[in-house]
């Protein structure tokens, strides 16, 4: 058991899985000698060499595309896209192929691979370095989409993603990389993909979030308990796709109210599916419209305006109080 931040926790997952399984290779820009621009792949190159930890040329489509080829052969590539803002260069490889080889070959081939990428705000970085693109991946059938919210579940979910026979897009919130440390057990842990986690129980309101926004949701819940005596159930989605509708619906059947918090732009965003799924499954329990607290529908804002754009505790509180007062 060691206290690790999310970077170290992810690094541990990679290290331990690579020690266990020679078929795992790591590939991406600067993942080797440099250890990744966020140091998630630190030391792996030294430990496993340049054939297993590949500093690729600068080309996202080929990073994903050659990983697909490796996966078809039987390797288990874990590729890194340096920032999610540059993942669209490889989007056609993910949508056209990684997500489809199982279907296209009727089970003869499949792509056991993970596409890791940092997403979201919080590092005072320029355009394309702070956006939240999870929606684009969540809508692709055949793909799984995972977003951990802290060191321990990040490590466990990355292990599960690596072992998952299907392609997994794995979003790591940059804002969490160094935000907090958590106890992470030495032995390998896994967490089931496709399962949301109730991180706080409550009967009055369900607050749903994931990634870096989970902290915001939790803080809002604590404040509501302290200031208003309202008990929120807080759900950490963890796997965006396939979405754990059962857990979401069960909670709202109990609470009758929900607030969804995410960093992605609102329109046609992940909150819409979450809200609709709840509405479909808990319609008669709903006491108020489900609220979405999200970033604005703007392409990017520059980090000088980031705080105003990304949901914060005050906004979640306001939405929660509105919902409760409905």
């Amino acid at each position, binding site marked *: 058991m060691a206290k690790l931040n999310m970077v170290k926790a992810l690094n541990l997952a990679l290290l331990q899985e690579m020690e266990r399984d020679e078929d795992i290779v790591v590939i991406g820009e600067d993942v080797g000698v440099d250890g990744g621009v966020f140091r998630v792949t630190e030391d792996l190159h030294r430990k496993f060499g340049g054939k297993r930890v590949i500093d690729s040329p600068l080309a996202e489509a080929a990073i994903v595309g*050659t990983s*697909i080829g490796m996966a078809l052969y039987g390797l288990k590539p874990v590729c890194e896209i340096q920032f999610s803002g540059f993942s669209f260069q490889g989007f056609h490889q993910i949508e056209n*192929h990684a997500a489809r080889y199982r279907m296209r070959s009727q089970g003869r081939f499949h792509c056991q691979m993970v596409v890791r990428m940092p997403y979201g705000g919080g590092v005072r970085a320029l355009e394309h370095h702070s956006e939240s693109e999870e929606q684009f991946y969540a809508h692709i059938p055949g793909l799984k989409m995972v977003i951990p919210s802290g060191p321990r579940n990040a490590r466990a979910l990355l292990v599960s993603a690596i072992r998952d026979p299907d392609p997994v897009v794995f979003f790591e919130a940059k804002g969490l990389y160094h935000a907090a440390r958590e106890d992470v057990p030495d032995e390998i842990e896994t967490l089931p993909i496709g399962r949301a986690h109730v991180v706080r129980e409550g009967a009055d309101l369900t607050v749903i979030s994931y990634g870096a926004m989970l902290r915001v949701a939790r803080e809002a819940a604590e404040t509501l308990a302290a200031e208003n005596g309202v008990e929120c159930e807080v759900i950490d989605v963890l796997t965006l796709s396939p979405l754990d*509708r059962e857990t979401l619906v069960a909670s709202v059947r109990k609470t009758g109210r929900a607030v969804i918090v995410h960093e992605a732009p609102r329109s046609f965003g992940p909150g819409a599916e979450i809200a609709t799924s709840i509405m479909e499954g808990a319609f008669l329990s709903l006491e108020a419209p489900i609220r979405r607290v999200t970033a604005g529908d703007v392409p990017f804002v520059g980090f000088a305006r980031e705080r105003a754009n990304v949901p914060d505790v005050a906004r979640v509180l306001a939405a929660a109080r509105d919902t409760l007062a409905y």
Partner: protein
Amino acid sequence: MPRKVLEPRFSVEYLSILDSDGNLDAALEPEISPEQLQTLYRAMLLGRRLDERMVRLQRQGRVGTFAPIKGQEASQMGSVFSLRRTDWMVPSFRETAAMLWRGWPIEKLLLFFAGHLEGGQPAPDQRDLPITIPVATQLPHAVGLAYAAQYRGDDVVVMAFFGDGATSEGDFHEALNFAGVWHVPIVFVCQNNQWAISVPIKKQTHSRTLAQKALAYGLPGIQVDGNDVLAVYAASRDAVEQARAGDGPTLIECVTYRLGVHTTADDPTKYRSEEEVQEWERKDPLTRFAAYLQKKNLLPEGLEQEVDAEIAAAVTRFEAAAAADPLRMFDHVYAEPPPHLVAQREEMRERLRSDNAPPEGEPHPSPPMRGQRSTSRWRN
């Protein structure tokens, strides 16, 4: 110091062994046993005859859109012929002859072009990727396969096919660049059939040859007469051997011609002249090879009938195949279907059971849909 030309200069070679007039460069003639020569010819002929049959089946509405290979049999067979069964073959969507050679049953290809998922499934031991439709996107996969083979230390070569148009895509570039840096055992076979649908090679790139694109990656590039199966074979054999020996990738440009339509949805009279087609018909790879075999007394009698019978039997099997069960479309989305897919499948099952349901899949040969005609272009 000053302004100077960097040495050594860059070059690409051109290879032709048996020209369209039947002239043979005996010094370059590859060693192929008589049986092998016959096998090669048969495979080319099978490709040609199936092609013709497929076009007819499409016109009758029994299969959907299909991309004929007529004219490109030498480029395909000359290259794939140098692979071992244990090597990998990565096709695009116009490699029927090569795919048959690699072991795809005819009826699977028919199923594929009739819109059945089942047609895309390679046999368990087959080292072939299924058809890839988005142009050039299969090339990084091929490089990844080659990397994995090298990583595992397997004695494997990968051969990847694509067209002239494919060389314009970013994926082509990225794949060749990765292959160069990684020095993997791969052979890139470009079938330059002069056209990408209606776009001639002149509008596709300003480079003199496609082979020279290899220079951008520090790789050897060679241009061959793609209608000369001997030249294609010789170049491919060398490239495969080189790859197998650990000497890295090669780009082979086969200069050939698509004698038929781009696909059954295309009308080439819109964009190219009858004369051009006729000129290339003179260079037909089959006629040329047949004459060569004839001279050697290797041309078997009754081969066409034999090949046609093989095709006919396969068409019969294809038509006897079960109608597509719609429920199976949920089977291979994930290794395990998640709850929402289980629910959607259940919903569909209910629906199919009920009276108002559409027929259980479409029986095939399926009738043309409303408004569809067997014309020479995409229509619904």
